[in-house]
């Protein structure tokens, strides 16, 4: 079957191409027609026989042939036909809504008469030149420039070109345009009219509207051939009809057919279109025609976008909204986020996980049933042919078997499941064939648990094929995956080629991920029962009998010398078990959780207990951290595996459990705790009494109510803490609760307090529970009762049990916790996504600069010192103290080398190491009075250590940074405020504050300043307070006792408060001066009269009521007037702090409200240190670099307050990216993401369709250099190992691999 077209089979020319770039543009009607294979004119899609109608929307020429038939256009079968466009010729032109805004922009700038831009021709030439420059170099400023030009053009009186009057245009969203006549009448501009104006716009002027035209570019040396985006194409004359592959019919069971939403919409359009065409030829009534025209316009609008405000959405019989073009692309379920970014894979498996402490930490247990499905392709070589033959013989059903073989000679694939004679195939096997064998012990696989918040969420494991149906993993790898075994499932992927396998082994293997790039310390370590066990094993009193000791020793591969064992049995056999694993030259000391010494000397634990501080996960500077840093990942992994199995076995044999009896405290302790509770009650009653009698001592800056609450909080919190401590102290040293808390295995002293002593205050939003029935929380209380019990204090504990009222309060508080977590995960998830899409395209270049994928520089030296946080020692490249100490042990002899020698040695390496390391080496070597050998060796090793801790070129640093900030987001509090006792210090903290900062919000929700004072004022409280009073914004209200109205002379008279005036250092004259500029004033002693200007309407002059009312309003206005101090500084408190640099105590001011510019120039202020938390203000006053530092400081302050450990370099990169453009850009769609060069990357984030439309209008090209773009088109990402290729040199000097 042929429709007279040449039939081309795509298969015959099956080349593989790589996409090098994607160009966006707008199709011209000519183009739409020429790429169309059929004009759609037939309004019924199918005939009576249910066959597609020729010329209908389902015309077979559009592609997507039925199974077993061929496409009439291209001759391919269903799998190979790409689909073909058709088109509808519209009877009347119709606006393409997507471009409506751009049409409006052009209409504003263009002269409706002559089609030229309404700008003076000379100026125009200059603008054109500037526009091309900006477009090329500063696209973000080009956008603003276009807006500016169009604004200028729209505001001219007459067109400078033809002299015709400028006509105002009104845009009625989403698609109607009107011109406004002189009498203010609105006349609709019909699409055809707009079209004809647009058609005459000269090519070279297009650039001024933001449109792209290479013809214009040519003149400015930018383009080659004429290639334009013409504005008249924004008005549709022909509509492309997408191929059937895009909108397939769905065949339901029972032969019922359902057409795609787009098909439905197209049918609607064809129907009206033919109706209009008929009407036109018949010469129908204008009204009817106009009606149909409107319907056509609406159908075309909803065909593009079905969720526009003001347009009734197209529906399926009024029920379900149709998903049309825009809806297909945008949102989480849209094409971009669901299909283009979210790819699906083969060779993966998912099942429930369970623990197995007999595995190596690098291993993962894989069920046999899964191993028989997942395969690894292995090329047959002379070395493995026998082995592979055996696998082929085993077939698909016996475990180490194979599922497929690919024979090179015949280029054929054989499924072993359906081959009867496998021995035949096994014998046929030749070198070069490929056997897809089962997954086996020792294969590398990727293991992953969602949510994949950081790179340790997907690590390389060595497969271990095991019986049963779950994935098994070692318990110490739970923290990085954040996994537990309450039903968690995980995914497993099998890399399919040797390059991927090698990468997984060397980069992703668990032991190489022990140190987290977030903070440069181990994230993998001992947790939970391991810590319990280690604590019990190594504490002072522990002795193991011989049998047990040898039993445990037998787990290790090497058994130490017998005399050592004999000795230890007498002294401390538990510590021996730990010491054996240590390297013989390892010396270290630290403090245990009980602040007791832990001393390791030359590989022997001499003193102290090994608890969480020593070997716990997420602990910096622990024994584990030192071991991994100094003896390598392999050693670290091995240490963890071995010690874990001993700890496991020990705890198993010793036994460890907890029961209700363990929570029982001795009678006398219970009595003591009750007394603590009673005392707290008494104290609270006392402060309540004081409050009621109005003699409560107020806390600075707080109202009486707030002060009362604050005090009650303190009393009750203190009571619980003391009760908890009492309880913990009274516990037996073998009490499991005690063991767990002290070792760091589980629980804190608060948990102990709640279990055994008292639950304490229950809160909602950090406040005592106060809602309920009007003036009481529950009806069992008297109205107005604000005592402890009535407001949610729980004196009971979990052991004793709660009474119903307590239980209820506890449930309230508990529910708040649940809601918080739910909200938190959402908020932090979105924050993470924004940061990720803002930074995903950043990588470290070969010159150690950080650049975007398109070469723009963000940092000149990564982290300013090139150091990779993952290779750092808790942020530092070299631990100088430790280095010098350990070298001193090797070279103990010799006298102090002297500062001259140290400087001499150091000067040789000065250019190689960062200044901070240089300084540290210098000071430490001098302080420790190192001898010459130590100096030489320490400097040599420091340089080596520094070199090995530098970051690799092509590291995807943006992603790592985003992960390092995004991952801990869930751990941040949602509680907005922090009560530091003084109100002026209470600032937004936690997640909300971080969001505020990276959002680049113009004003922080709690603006605060920290004002340092000059020499004269900083050392005395009086002087500080003097400044505080002066700096605080004083309103007239603050210095006035009252006012009266002088009706006769129509003035307001204020009685000034002389004391208050003196306090803020003002005289009545000063007050007068404020008003005398604008009003007539009179000062008489402490009476100040001001005459406000009054506008009175006719007939009001005599109405005294109205005049009094007006005067009163004026007086109230005057009272609010700022008369002295610094505007915006609402409250000031004075506090004493210690200067970190000088160690001196000084007085500083904390303010609510901020006004940096004025405070800096205020007399008595130290302008070099005074800061605000308003980053925009800092930018405006102190510039972009100061803003960058402010961003870092503000983020750091939040993280420190939350106790989160994040490497400084991550925060720096965020700040540098946000300030790269010279202004503060938010990490989101209007800021950093909008600056991305890639259209696809922007579209994949948010506002998909507007991004695509803009790209089309601008004629942008996506060069596919960033990661997101490449994921979308399906090629390898040019970042990390994706940006290098591996070559192997074959021949002369053998096969040394070389990267190129």
């Amino acid at each position, binding site marked *: 079957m042929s429709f007279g077209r040449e039939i081309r089979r795509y298969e015959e020319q099956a080349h593989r191409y790589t996409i090098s770039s994607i160009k966006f543009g707008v199709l011209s009607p000519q183009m739409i027609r020429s790429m169309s294979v059929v004009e759609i004119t037939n309004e019924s899609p199918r005939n009576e026989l249910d066959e597609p109608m020729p010329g209908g929307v389902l015309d077979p020429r559009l592609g997507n042939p039925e199974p077993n038939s061929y496409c009439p256009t291209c001759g391919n079968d269903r799998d190979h036909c790409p689909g073909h466009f058709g088109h509808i010729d519209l009877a009347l032109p119709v606006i393409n809504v997507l471009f409506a805004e751009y049409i409006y922009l052009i209409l504003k700038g263009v002269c409706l008469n002559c089609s030229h831009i309404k700008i003076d021709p000379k100026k125009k030439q200059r603008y054109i030149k500037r526009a091309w420059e900006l477009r090329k*170099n*500063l696209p973000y*400023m080009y956008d603003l420039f276009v807006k500016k030009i169009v604004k200028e053009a729209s505001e001219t009186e007459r067109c400078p070109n033809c002299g015709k009057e400028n006509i105002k245009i009104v845009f009625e969203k989403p698609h109607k345009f009107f011109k406004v006549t002189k009498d203010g009448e609105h006349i609709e501009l019909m699409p055809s009219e707009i079209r004809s104006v647009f058609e005459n716009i000269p090519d070279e002027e297009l650039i001024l509207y933001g449109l792209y035209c290479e013809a214009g570019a040519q003149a400015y040396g930018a383009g080659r051939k004429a290639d334009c985006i013409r504005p008249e194409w924004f008005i549709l004359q022909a509509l492309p009809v997408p191929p059937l592959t895009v909108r397939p019919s769905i065949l339901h069971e029972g032969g019922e057919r359902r057409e795609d939403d787009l098909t439905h919409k197209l049918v609607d359009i064809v129907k009206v279109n033919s109706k209009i065409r008929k009407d036109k030829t018949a010469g129908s009534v204008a009204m009817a025609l106009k009606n149909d025209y409107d319907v056509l316009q609406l159908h075309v609008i909803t065909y593009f976008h079905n969720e526009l405000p003001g347009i009734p959405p197209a529906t399926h019989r009024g029920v379900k909204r149709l998903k049309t073009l825009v809806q297909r692309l945008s949102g989480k379920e849209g094409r971009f986020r669901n299909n283009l970014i979210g790819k699906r894979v083969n060779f993966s498996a998912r099942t429930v996980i369970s623990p197995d402490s007999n595995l190596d930490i690098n291993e993962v247990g894989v069920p046999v049933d899964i191993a028989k499905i997942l395969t690894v392709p292995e090329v047959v070589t002379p070395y493995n042919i026998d082995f592979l033959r055996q696998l082929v013989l085993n077939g698909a059903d016996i475990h180490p078997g194979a599922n497929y073989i690919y024979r090179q000679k015949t280029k054929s694939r054989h499924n072993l499941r359906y081959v009867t004679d496998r021995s035949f195939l096994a014998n046929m096997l030749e070198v070069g064939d490929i056997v897809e064998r089962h997954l086996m012990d020792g294969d590398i696989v990727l293991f992953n648990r969602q949510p994949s918040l950081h790179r340790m969420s997907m690590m390389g494991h060595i497969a271990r094929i095991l019986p049963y149906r779950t994935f098994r993993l070692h318990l110490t790898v739970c923290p990085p995956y954040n996994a537990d075994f309450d039903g968690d499932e995980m995914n497993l992927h099998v890399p399919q080629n040797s390059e991927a396998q090698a990468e997984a082994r060397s980069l992703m293997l668990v032991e190489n991920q022990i140190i987290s790039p977030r903070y440069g310390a181990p994230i993998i370590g001992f947790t939970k029962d391991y810590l319990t066990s280690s604590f019990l094993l190594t504490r002072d009193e522990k002795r193991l009998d011989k049998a047990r000791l040898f039993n445990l020793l037998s787990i290790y591969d090497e058994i130490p010398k017998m005399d050592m064992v004999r000795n230890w049995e007498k002294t401390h056999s538990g510590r021996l078990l730990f010491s054996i694993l240590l390297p013989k030259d390892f010396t270290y000391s630290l403090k245990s959780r009980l602040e007791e010494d832990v001393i390791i000397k030359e590989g022997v634990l001499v003193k102290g207990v090994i608890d969480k501080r020593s070997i716990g996960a997420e602990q910096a500077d622990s024994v584990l951290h030192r071991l991994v840093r100094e003896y390598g990942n392999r050693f670290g992994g091995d240490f963890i595996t071995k010690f874990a199995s001993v700890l496991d076995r020990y705890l198993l044999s010793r036994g460890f459990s907890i029961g209700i009896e363990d929570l029982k405290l001795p009678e006398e302790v219970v009595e003591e705790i009750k007394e603590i509770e009673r005392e707290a009650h008494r104290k609270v009653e006392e402060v309540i009494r004081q409050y009621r009698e109005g003699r409560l001592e107020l806390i600075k800056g707080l109202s009486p109510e707030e002060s009362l609450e604050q005090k009650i909080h303190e009393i009750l919190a203190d009571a619980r803490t003391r009760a908890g401590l009492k309880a913990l102290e009274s516990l037996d040293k073998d009490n499991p609760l005690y063991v767990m808390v002290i070792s760091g295995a589980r629980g804190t002293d608060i948990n102990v307090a709640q279990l055994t002593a008292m639950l304490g205050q229950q809160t909602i939003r950090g406040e005592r529970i106060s809602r309920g029935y009007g003036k009481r929380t529950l009806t069992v209380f008297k109205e107005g009762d604000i005592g402890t019990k009535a407001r949610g204090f729980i004196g009971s504990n979990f052991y004793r049990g709660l009474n119903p009222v307590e239980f209820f309060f506890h449930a309230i508080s508990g529910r708040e916790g649940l809601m918080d977590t739910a909200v938190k995960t959402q908020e932090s998830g979105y924050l993470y996504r924004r940061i990720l899409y803002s930074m995903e395209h950043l990588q470290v270049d070969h*010159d150690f*600069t950080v*650049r975007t994928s398109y*070469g*723009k*520089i*963000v*940092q*000149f*030296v990564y*982290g*300013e*010192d090139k*150091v990779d946080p993952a290779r750092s020692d808790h*942020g530092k490249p070299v631990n100088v103290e430790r280095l010098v100490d350990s070298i001193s042990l090797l070279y103990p002899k010799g006298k102090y080398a002297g500062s001259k020698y140290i400087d001499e040695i150091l000067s040789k390496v000065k250019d190689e190491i*960062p*200044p*901070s*390391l*240089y*300084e540290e080496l210098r000071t430490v070597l001098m302080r420790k009075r190192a001898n010459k050998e130590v100096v030489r060796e320490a400097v040599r090793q420091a340089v080596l250590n520094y070199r090995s801790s530098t970051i690799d070129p092509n590291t995807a640093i943006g992603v790592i940074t985003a992960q390092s900030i995004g991952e801990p987001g869930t751990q941040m509090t949602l509680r907005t405020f922090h009560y530091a006792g003084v109100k002026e210090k209470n600032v937004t903290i936690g997640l909300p504050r971080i969001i505020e900062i990276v959002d680049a919000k113009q004003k922080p929700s709690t603006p605060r300043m920290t004002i340092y004072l000059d020499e004269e004022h900083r050392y005395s409280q009086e002087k500080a307070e003097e400044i505080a009073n002066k700096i605080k914004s004083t309103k007239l209200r603050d210095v006035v006792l009252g006012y009266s109205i002088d009706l006769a002379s129509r003035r307001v008279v204020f009685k000034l408060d002389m004391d208050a005036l003196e306090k803020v250092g003002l005289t009545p004259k000063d007050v007068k001066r404020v008003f005398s500029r604008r009003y007539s004033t009179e000062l008489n002693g402490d009476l100040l009269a001001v005459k406000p200007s009054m506008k009175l309407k006719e007939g009001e002059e005599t109405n005294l009521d109205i005049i009094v009312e007006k005067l009163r309003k004026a007086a109230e206005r005057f009272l609010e007037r700022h008369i002295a101090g610094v505007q915006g500084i609402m409250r000031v408190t004075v506090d004493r702090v210690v200067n970190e640099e000088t160690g001196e105590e000084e007085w500083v001011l904390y303010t609510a409200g901020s006004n940096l*510019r004025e405070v*800096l*120039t205020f007399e008595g202020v130290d*302008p*070099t*240190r005074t*800061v605000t938390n308003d980053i925009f203000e*800092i930018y*405006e*006053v*102190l*510039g*972009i*670099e*100061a803003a960058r*530092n*402010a961003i870092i400081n503000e983020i750091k302050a939040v993280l420190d307050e939350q106790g989160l450990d994040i490497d*400084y*370099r991550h925060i*720096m990169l965020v700040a*540098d990216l946000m*300030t*790269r*453009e*010279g*202004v503060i850009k938010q990490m989101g769609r209007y800021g950093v993401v909008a600056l991305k060069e890639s259209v696809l990357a922007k579209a994949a984030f948010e506002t998909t369709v507007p991004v695509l439309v803009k790209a089309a209008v601008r004629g942008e090209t996506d060069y596919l250099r960033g990661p997101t773009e490449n994921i979308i088109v399906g090629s390898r990402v040019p970042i990390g190992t994706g940006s290098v290729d591996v070559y192997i040199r074959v021949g002369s000097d053998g096969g040394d691999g070389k990267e190129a």
Partner: protein
Amino acid sequence: MPSSDNELDEKLKKIILSHRLVPEHRILSKEEAQKVIEKYCGGDKYKLPYIRKSDPIVKALGAKKDDVIMIIRRSPTAGVSVYYRLVIG
């Protein structure tokens, strides 16, 4: 007091430049700037980070469009670190 406006500006300028948050800024000579551009951007100066003409520091230094400003930052990781910014309109 209109006469003191300039005075105030001068004073503010001094204060701004001596503030803790503001690192040392220096305008590079044409030759130095060209070297930086060659070294880092292969000639395309727009690859550098930017600073606005309206930035208070740019105004205080009197830098002009297309100047390259060298910034000597105090760095908690490296001690001292150098950054460059191109002045744009």
